[in-house]
């Protein structure tokens, strides 16, 4: 495994009926990296993950997961892989402990071996006092953490996460992020899909932005911001925005309008801020450009579903 990528996919293509949802995707993730696959709904992220896990056969392309060719030896590869799915699929008939034991058995582990790992897994998930709790009594955040703990039952080298924090409140989300950082510090490889840019910016060393089945940009979050977008943003809305926008267009290189809000992008936004100084009707927010701005620039502002 030394030096070889933990996951490498080349030229992946996949169609469902007439629609090609993955259209030539290349991914390479070195061991120990946290890699983010970003994209709007329907971009092909989940399908790409399924292809990498060997749960769906690509129409074209090759995949190697932890040194094993996929889908041919996907079963062997999955022995050392953990998965946090997009939708909760914990076993509702079982307690917290039973969920972990039953899941560990799928990996061929002995019950004793699994039980030895449980205290550590529950500690990690912040569920130490809840070993015997029924799944129905757990909050959304607790279930998500248990799903994460379940994905670690086989001590995986690589963990796939499909939108790990969707539907969680900020406290729960920050806690999960903390856990994920901890996992990368232990040397595990993480591959996550998300449409929270903030999540990707905080966690991922490298991200790829995917749209319409293709990867349209790739690099570290900082690189992507530097490469694709001006460093400062001013968002403006309020009475008289039309008239002001006409003027703003001459002050900065790029002005965009979405509904009633005007976005001004520039490396130097001083002229914009000066022009806003006398406009009490207009409300504005001045902030550094983020990955979300890159994402919206590259994938557009139109709704996807």
């Amino acid at each position: 495994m030394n030096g070889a990528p933990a996951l490498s996919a080349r030229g992946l293509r996949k169609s469902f009926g007439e629609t090609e949802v993955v259209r030539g995707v290349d991914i390479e993730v070195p061991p120990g990296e946290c890699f983010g696959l970003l994209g709007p709904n329907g971009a092909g992220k989940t399908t790409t993950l399924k292809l990498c896990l060997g749960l769906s056969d690509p129409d074209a392309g090759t995949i190697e997961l932890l040194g094993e060719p996929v889908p041919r030896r996907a079963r062997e590869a999955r022995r050392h892989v953990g998965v946090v799915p997009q939708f909760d699929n914990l076993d509702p008939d079982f307690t917290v402990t039973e969920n972990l034991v039953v899941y560990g058995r799928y990996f061929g582990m002995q019950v004793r071996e699994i039980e030895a790992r449980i205290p550590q897994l529950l500690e990690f998930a912040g569920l130490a006092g809840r070993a015997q709790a029924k799944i129905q009594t757990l909050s959304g955040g607790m279930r998500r953490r248990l799903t994460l703990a379940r994905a670690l039952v086989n001590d995986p080298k690589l963990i796939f996460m499909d939108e790990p924090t969707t539907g969680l409140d900020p406290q729960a989300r920050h806690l999960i992020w903390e856990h994920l950082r901890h996992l990368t510090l232990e040397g595990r490889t993480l591959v996550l899909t998300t449409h929270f840019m903030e999540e990707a910016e905080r966690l991922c060393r490298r991200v790829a932005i995917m749209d319409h089945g293709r990867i349209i940009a790739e690099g570290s979050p900082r690189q992507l911001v530097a490469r694709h977008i001006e460093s400062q943003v001013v968002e403006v809305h309020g009475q008289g925005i039309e008239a002001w926008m006409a003027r703003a267009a001459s002050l900065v290189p790029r002005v965009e309008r979405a509904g009633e809000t005007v976005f001004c992008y520039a490396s130097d936004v001083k002229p914009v801020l000066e022009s806003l100084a006398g406009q009490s009707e207009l409300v504005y927010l001045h902030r550094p450009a983020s990955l979300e701005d890159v994402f919206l620039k590259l994938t557009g502002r139109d709704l996807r579903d």
Partner: protein
Amino acid sequence: MNLARRYAPPALSARFWPVWQRNFLVWKKLALPSILGNLADPLILLFGLGYGLGAVIGELEGTSYFAYLAGGFVASATMYAATFESLFSAFSRMHVQRTWEAIVNAPLTLDDVVTGEWAWCASKALAAGVAVLIVVALFGYVSSALALAAIPVVLLIGLAFGALGLSINALASSYDYFSYYLTLALTPMMILSGVFFPVERLPEAIQAIAVVLPLYHGVAIVRPMLSGALAPGLLVHLAVLAAYAIVAFYVAVVLTRRRLLK
């Protein structure tokens, strides 16, 4: 999934076992109500018809009507237990709870999952069939130790109907879908398979339908065993049940692959 892989024979491996264990663990929590549930329906019918209708009919084919019915109900209770497990319970694991999705993220294939479910449906059917057998034995309607030989036959009936149910499950869009199978396939099968009355009394055209039904062959084997006789044509009956089990299992695997491995 390419066609060659979709239609390939099921890849059997010992990995199906944890799936069986998972279902067993759920069942253990509710074992008593579950067995009573599987028993109540056939036993109410059996005792009602056996004593009630039996009083009118008297003897049938040389035994009391109750004894006649008992042989049929061991087979039909097995059929229903396998069917309900492979329809409603498997559907909630596959579709509602997404349990199968969780399992195939581990080093199990969908073939392992379907195999585990199949083995589980047959086990539950075995428990139901044996429970009915024990009850009729307690009431004195089993007159030979050969009845023990009905136990593996019950398992085979469970495998056949479990596999048929899993095939239907792979096609279902919701629980409602199953009423078609229950009312259009199983209810007529229950009537035409010699559970309540000898098929030989029916018009020949209908007899021709009866002999292709799996339950007919199950009843034909089990009933004489309870009174210590082997059915004429035993091997043919066994072969038909085994063929149903094997072919339906293959169909169940292919249809489930088509549904879940896109």
